[in-house]
């Protein structure tokens, strides 16, 4: 039977949450297409393959010294070997740091279409139709592939995580992993010893709408102090050097779940939302009524944060 194959991702021997989400996705997509869900796991010794087998009925394990660490060359060669050894209809990959690094390469190696950064998939007329965010989440589009096989990447949180419980069969697949042209020398921590905002009960975060570093300091920090919380930021604020990287909330920064998260001048790109959507109460202040942040906020004010925040301060 044809298979929907996920490529598992693991770091330091631990299976990533995104892989468990893909297990869920593969099961529902496989059943809609009359296929079977399966996973491919690439590692030095196969230990992590047994872990993935708790979540999906079939696991194909490629084991090679060159697969100890992630590389685009290694993962593409290994994934191609699994696809060619099985009847694989489609490959699902996380739209993660590693996923975006090799998914498009694998699609070309398999000579098939890729739809990346998807958040949904439905089956129409026997073929998968993907939904994905474009224009910073303001518009979504539907796409499909024109080729027999497909590769798709999914954004984090697109599916719930599959629960452990099964004992899938692990099958070794032989693969020739050729030259790996990128060598990982080391992994370094860039935020060691920095402030930890993840324990704060209240977080006031500023975004691109703050316009400049002085305004960020004059508006966001005083409000955070007044409510006894921590100040934080979306990526553009940190990229511009208005505050330190340890205060960045989102996929590339911290994940936080305070009682109150105030997002000022933050549009609500998926990368930011991934790091704060679990907050108990979310306040969005933005002059753009169509900013996606209003789709996850509890309360919203459509207006100029430079007028709204000083007025809030007067009432606190």
């Amino acid at each position, binding site marked *: 039977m044809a298979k929907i194959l996920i490529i598992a991702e693991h770091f330091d021997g631990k299976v990533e949450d995104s892989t468990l989400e893909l297990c869920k996705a593969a099961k529902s997509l496989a059943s809609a297409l009359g296929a079977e869900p399966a996973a491919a796991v690439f590692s030095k010794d196969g230990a992590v393959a047994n872990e993935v087998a708790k979540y999906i009925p079939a696991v194909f394990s490629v084991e090679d010294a060159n697969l100890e660490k992630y590389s685009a060359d290694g993962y593409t060669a290994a994934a191609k070997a699994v696809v060619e050894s099985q009847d694989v209809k489609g490959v699902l990959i996380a739209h993660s740091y590693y996923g975006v690094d090799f998914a498009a390469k694998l*699609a070309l190696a398999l000579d098939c279409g890729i739809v990346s950064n998807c958040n949904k998939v439905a089956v129409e007329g026997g073929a998968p139709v993907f939904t994905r965010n474009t224009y910073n989440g303001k518009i979504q589009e539907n796409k*499909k592939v024109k080729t027999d096989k497909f590769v798709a990447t999914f954004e984090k949180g697109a599916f719930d995580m599959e629960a452990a419980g099964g004992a899938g069969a692990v099958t070794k697949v032989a693969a020739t992993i050729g030259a790996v042209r*990128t060598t990982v020398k080391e992994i*370094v921590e860039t935020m060691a010893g920095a402030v930890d905002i993840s324990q704060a009960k209240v977080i006031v975060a500023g975004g691109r709408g703050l316009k400049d570093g002085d305004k960020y300091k004059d508006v966001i920090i005083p409000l955070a102090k007044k409510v006894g919380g921590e100040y934080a930021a979306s990526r553009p604020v940190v990229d511009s050097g208005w505050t330190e990287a340890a205060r960045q909330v989102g996929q590339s920064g911290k994940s936080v779940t305070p*009682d109150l998260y105030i997002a000022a001048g933050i549009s609500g790109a998926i990368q930011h939302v991934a790091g704060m959507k679990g907050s108990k109460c979310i306040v969005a202040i933005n002059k753009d009524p169509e900013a996606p942040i209003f789709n996850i906020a509890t309360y919203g*004010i459509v207006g100029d944060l430079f007028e709204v925040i000083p007025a809030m301060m007067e*009432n606190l």
Partner: protein
Amino acid sequence: MKIVVCLKQVPDMESKFKIIDEKKIDESQIAFKINDFDNYAVEAALQLKEKLGGEVVIVSAGPARAQKDVRQAFAMGADWGIQIDDPAVEAGDNYVIAEALQKAIASIGDVELVLTGVQAEDDQASVTGVMMAHLMDAPHVTNVVKLEVNGKDLTVNRELAGGKNEVINLSIPAVLAIQSGINEPRYPTLPGIMKAKKKRLDVKKAADFGASAAAKTEFIKMFIPVSEHKAEIIQGDPKTAAATLVNKLKNEAKVL
């Protein structure tokens, strides 16, 4: 060092988006600009040129309006450029664009480094650079937040989740997808803007480079997403709305 930067013109994401017939956005209300991530790639290339010499070439695919932003990169300091203004490429998918860009880059000759932004703000696909690397048979690294060149060897940092970086070695020729925050993109100077007007910009069709890829994916439709959840929008002038909000946070949500 001969460096190519692939640059895309995109809408300002704060624009008011309207969709025509589920197929395309209404451009009449849209202001266009350089894809943010590409700005960082241009700056990274200019810094390497300042250190090592060589030239920086901008390669872009897009309609005539995109020339404005290729010249913006010229004003920052890039030397010359190629613009692929071809409806067949515009109508294609990421693969069609990747092949056209790669063939255009091959026509330049002896390119040692290709830089792209980590993604385009409009398409959000993050696939074109990786595809170009595959077509060039060159190694690549995405999400690059640090970059050093030592002769033919590159040492780059790849951003990972939670503040971790992977330090990676590879050799040129290579493709790097540059993440935002790696540097502070410069603003064009007035003399830079004057010089930019005279810099060479070759406007070409894909066929001029022998590019002829067919799309492997099909666009079906676009739509404004309807959220199942909407915030309770607090009405009134800023003072009234702020007072109401604080009251709700204290007495309704009980989080203050």
